[in-house]
């Protein structure tokens, strides 16, 4: 009888001590947790407030019929704005332009960037200077470069492009008005090729040289080496360049604003410019907001799809290896 009685308080005490210790630890870890979270919170709260709150408002505005030109006309219309947007043929034209602009620019920039990166990967006299010159288009204020392309480069009479092409029988072509979207894309490709080149060059230079050396010893030709070794290694960098390029290019506005104003008609307009026109020149807040929501949803769908594609390609590679 005495034995169990004497023994009972011992585990109790143990438990109690453990509970107290756990509580104290929890308290410590809670304090520690806040100490760790402290430095993060200002940035996190700031970002949530500045970037997320406007989207909530956009959602709300998109359910309103609201034109700034006729004050007092504001009222709730449910999903009517969305119906109008989907029935707006110009919207689809502009959406298509946006896709062409992003896909075309990214594709051409990646190919040119790859070629330039391969050129710069080998040592030659003045390589550093050549690289510095090549990255400059990416640094020039986009508004300034759009102005230069529109005037000095593409002008039908005094432009450099026609001057360079004149030996090939090209005469006084007004590039910007005859081919507005391709003209904008030329300026964008010029701007984004250096970006792709830098990314791919970083990939080339992170490549272990001994693997290439071993391949060469095994008697593989230059093209086979490139296809079998270099390209698979570069894949991650090219994919990253594609995704980042697309993320930045969705917001293309400067070049269109400066070079074509989206015209003629909507021939060279993309979604940011079209929404801008609707909101700030047409004052149709409700419709513009609805378009904004559609663009965001579209971007999320495509981004998720693209990201998944990339992630599966990564895991697939791991499985193969």
């Amino acid at each position, binding site marked *: 009888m005495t034995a169990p009685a004497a023994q009972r308080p011992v585990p109790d005490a143990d438990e109690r001590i453990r509970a107290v210790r756990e509580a104290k630890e929890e308290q410590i870890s809670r304090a520690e947790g806040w100490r760790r979270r402290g430095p993060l919170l200002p940035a996190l709260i*700031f970002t949530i407030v500045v970037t997320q709150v*406007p989207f909530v408002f956009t959602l709300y505005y998109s359910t309103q019929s609201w034109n700034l030109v006729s004050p007092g006309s504001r009222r709730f219309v449910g999903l009517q704005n969305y119906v109008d947007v989907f029935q707006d043929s110009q919207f689809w034209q502009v959406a298509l332009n946006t896709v062409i602009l992003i896909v075309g620019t990214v594709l051409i920039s990646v190919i040119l960037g790859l070629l330039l990166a391969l050129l710069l990967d080998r040592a030659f006299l003045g390589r550093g*200077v050549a690289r510095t010159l090549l990255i400059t288009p990416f640094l020039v204020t986009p508004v*300034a470069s759009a*102005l230069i392309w529109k005037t000095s480069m593409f002008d039908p009479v005094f432009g450099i492009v026609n001057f360079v092409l004149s030996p090939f029988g090209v005469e006084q072509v007004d590039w910007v008005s005859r081919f507005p979207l391709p003209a904008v894309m030329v300026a964008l490709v*010029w701007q984004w090729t250096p970006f792709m080149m830098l990314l791919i060059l*970083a990939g080339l230079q992170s490549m272990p040289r001994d693997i290439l050396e071993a391949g060469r010893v095994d008697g593989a030709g230059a093209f086979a080496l490139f296809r079998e070794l270099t390209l698979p290694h570069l894949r991650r960098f090219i994919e990253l360049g594609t995704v980042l390029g697309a993320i930045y290019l969705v917001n293309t506005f400067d070049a269109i604003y400066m070079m074509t104003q989206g015209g003629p008609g909507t021939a060279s307009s993309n979604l940011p410019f079209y929404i801008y026109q609707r*909101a700030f020149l047409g004052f149709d807040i409700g419709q513009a907001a609805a378009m904004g929501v559609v663009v965001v949803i579209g971007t999320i769908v495509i981004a998720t799809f693209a990201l998944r594609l990339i992630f599966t390609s990564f895991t697939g590679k791991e499985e193969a290896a």
Partner: protein
Amino acid sequence: MSTTATEPQASDTTAPTSRVMRTARKRKNRKFNPWGVVAWIAAIGFFFPVFWMVLTAFKQEADAYSDPPKFFFTPTLDQFRAVFETGVGTALLNSAFATIVSTVLVLLLGVPAAFALSLRPVKKTKDVLFFFISTKMLPIVAAIIPLYVIVANVGLLDNIWALIILYTAMNLPIAVWMMRSFFLEVPGELLEAASMDGASLWTAVRELILPLVSPGIAATALICVIFSWNEFFFAVNLTAVQAQTIPVFLVGFITGEGLYWARLSAAATMAALPVVLAGWLAQNKLVRGLSFGAIK
């Protein structure tokens, strides 16, 4: 950048050996590479529009409008003078102010946040990182309407502080990701060792960690400077005369289009110059910033 990547063993070897290797590399460099000529042609081709912009800036309008284009002429500073008279000074000051203040704010918010996501990570670090990068994926245009309404309601239209707040939010995710990649390169034992020596966390961070990541802070700042200086969409929608930045100032030249190419080129050169110089200085860190720290 290139040499360390191609010859990682160079740092491990003793000085005499590395000198041998360096001369070997030099000899290899000296071997003529015909593709180098192609690379130079490409580089000059890509640089040409910038070169032409600067060249035209020093022309008289009559020389700017010539067919065939003039490469040789008597240079003049008239165009720069004319641009200054049209009030580029205010725009340059506004741009400089918005760029510098927003970059400082980004660093003040972003560096501690990056620390809390790397060396002493919070729970759900991954979610927070994903949140930061996801804000960069959403098209800005979807937010501009409410931003305009909010900014107008609080009386900040045509006020440089509206841009400063937005530029800070725009660059913060990049800075957090980029700074995190620099913090992760700091050996974690450093903090433990310091705390064992009785140093407080703040002292350890200030005396040990910050000096180690200071090149990273400089690179992050330069990336932020480039993006804020070049930003146009917010600036054109939220400012007019008082707070106009240099890209907005350039818009004025599309109306006088076809008349003042030389002056336009002078203005464009002045707009582009600061950031081109910053980018040239930061070129080795450019990739890291643009890829959110994913590529070093």
